[in-house]
């Protein structure tokens, strides 16, 4: 039903609006007083609600950081949970202002959906989760297996490619939501559950006995996950893009949630530009000069957000790996704020 209403909104928006793309997203958000942010239907570490309905996760923190930059209040976000197959329609129809929902950046998504990726919040790759009792040590031993997958993801195509190029047979069973997929895997309908590795770790926590399941070592694809905005609003595109860059640059400069106030008083020219005590970089983005300190006070720098949600400080215990900063052995690299 959700899907039908989304498509209906899209048809209305496309068919009746006289103006082409609304180039006014920032103004719309400011007038509304809320940022509408598309997230997952519950993926621990990235976006999931607790029992009181508070959303947490790395993708959620990106939304909160944008809200903090605009309103100086990270709570002014309306989270819209979306299934994998509904997410793009929700963005196209204007139901959400930004999609921050572990979405893989690919060429076709960049060119044909009328949307743009603004950066990479998490470098991921596709992997396989199996029961330990199967005694499988490598994905290459999965010939003739039944594989459960969530529909509407790049995962389905990677899976077909991988088994085909390795001359292996398999049976795919595709479900509408992550929960249904995991339930079918747990019930024994499939031997394997495949998805982005981060998601495998997150979903494993939901299983009855997480220790009975193991993520195989093979990573069969590149899955750079990042936020998306509608095409045609460059101001909004810049703001969302630079919000993530600000979190990354803050980590590189050693700005943390704790020391942000002290750092803001610094005389270093680099820090003065970042904190807006020199120049008006924030205003060129359409927000205030102190946008970076607003963001860091709200969600911390990228490293803090990573540790809190998916890394050492979380249940997921995912290593930084590729997501470490470029000068510490990873590939996370943000252009400078100047």
């Amino acid at each position, binding site marked *: 039903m959700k899907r039908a209403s989304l498509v209906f909104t899209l048809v209305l928006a496309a068919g009746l609006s006289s103006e082409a793309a609304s180039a006014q997203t920032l103004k719309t958000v400011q007038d509304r007083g809320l940022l509408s942010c598309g997230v997952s239907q519950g993926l621990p570490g990235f976006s999931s609600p607790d029992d009181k309905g508070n959303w947490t996760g790395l993708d959620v923190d990106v939304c909160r950081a944008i809200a903090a930059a605009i309103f100086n209040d990270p709570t002014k976000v309306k989270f819209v949970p979306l299934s994998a197959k509904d*997410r793009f329609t929700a963005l196209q129809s204007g139901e959400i202002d930004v999609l921050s929902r572990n979405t893989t950046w690919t060429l076709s998504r960049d060119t044909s959906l009328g949307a743009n990726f603004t950066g990479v919040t998490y470098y991921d790759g596709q992997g396989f989760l199996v029961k330990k009792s199967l005694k499988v040590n490598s994905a290459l031993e999965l010939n003739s297996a039944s594989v459960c997958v969530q529909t509407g993801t790049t995962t389905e195509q990677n899976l077909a490619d991988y088994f085909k190029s390795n001359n292996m047979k398999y049976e795919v*069973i595709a479900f509408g939501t992550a929960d249904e997929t995991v339930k079918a895997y747990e019930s024994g309908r499939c031997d394997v559950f495949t998805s982005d590795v981060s998601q495998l770790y997150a979903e494993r926590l939901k299983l009855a006995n997480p220790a009975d399941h193991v993520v195989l070592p093979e990573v069969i694809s590149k899955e750079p996950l990042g936020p998306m905005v509608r095409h045609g609003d460059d101001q909004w595109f810049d703001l969302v893009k630079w919000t993530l860059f600000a979190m990354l640059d803050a980590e590189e400069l050693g700005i943390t949630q704790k020391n942000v106030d002290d750092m803001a008083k610094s005389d270093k020219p680099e820090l003065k530009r970042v904190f807006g005590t020199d120049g008006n970089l924030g205003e060129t983005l359409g927000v205030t000069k102190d946008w970076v300190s607003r963001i860091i006070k709200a969600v911390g720098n990228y490293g803090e957000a990573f540790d809190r949600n998916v890394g050492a400080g979380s249940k997921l215990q995912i290593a930084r790996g590729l997501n470490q900063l470029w000068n510490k052995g990873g590939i996370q690299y943000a252009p400078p704020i100047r």
Partner: protein
Amino acid sequence: MSIEPRSPPPQFAFRLKRALGGRAGWGGFALQILFVAVLVWIGYEIVENAKANLQAQRITSGFGFLNNTAGFDVSQNLIPYTGSDTYARVFFVGLLNTLLVSIIGIFFATVIGFLVALGRLSPNWLLSRISGGYVELIRNLPLLFQLLFWYLAVLAALPNPRQGISLLGAVFLSNRGLVIPRPNGEPGFEPFVVALLIAIVAAVVLWRYSRRQLFQSGKVIKVWPYALGFLIGLPLLSTLIFGKPLTFEIPELKGFNFSGGSRVIPEFVALTIALSTYTAAFIAEIVRAGILSVHRGQMEAGSSLGLQRGSVLRLIVIPQAMRVILPPLTNQYLNLTKNSSLAVAIGYPDLVSVFAGTTLSQTGQAIEIIGITMGVYLLISLVTSAIMSFYGWRIGRSMGG
């Protein structure tokens, strides 16, 4: 008895004017033309505007995507399909899966529905209570819930392939579905089919002959032993002359799953059971109402002719009840077809799942894909309605009504 003189039939021009313009005559006709023209214009503007806006937002539009490679696999395909086929082929794979589950679901729903209705009307106390209980239980629980029950509680509880239930070492039941030996055609296959067809025709001719004899002279001729003789004898003869018609490929456990043989996937089984039992509960009530709508006197008249209760129902009551049953029965058939789109919840690859789901999110062409899908469901529903109307028309004609 005097007969009123009939008024002469209205002139053609007058009837046309009335049909097109109603009471307002030709002026009304002009207004209607104008109204339709405005509707068409609004529709055209919406389409053009949508096109322009989609282009401005750089959302790809048009139907060119149908020729692109799909790149994903589907667990059940009635026509050959691999990941390197096009989205157009995915569409047909999904459509056939939807039609398959709908047609088989409609068949079982009708059979169960009629049986439950007859059971509920039966003088047998226990049978009628069980049937009544079935209807009340099934129709008052949400369909999605029943679907998940069959899939996650019943079928998923079957053992894994390694401990699968085996029948004669050839048929295997496990949580991966039902695996049966796959028949492969041999040189003797074509003569076998021809022999079988001849036998069927002969049996039908015999049956019709016996019916004619029954109606004309009241003689009861036992033809079934001869018919059975034909049906078994001729194919057997063909096998003896031309050799085995079929060999069977026996499935065996290889790795994680069975290889060889044909497989019925549990998603299909769960969906078929859920759809047919659910719709059967509604059909049972419709059939019951239809049967009760036939006047009691018809039943008594039948009984007084010495017919058995079953024959009275079959020959007298149900044909009359069909006229009442048919319109709401059509509704149930349409509902079943549309409800089959719940398939996505249990991973059955129906049209909505593979086309309006996977294909949509891979191409992002929501307007086109949802448009095609809605058109297809509309078409399926209209065809179903047309078939049922034709059937209703035949019943009406045969009863002279």
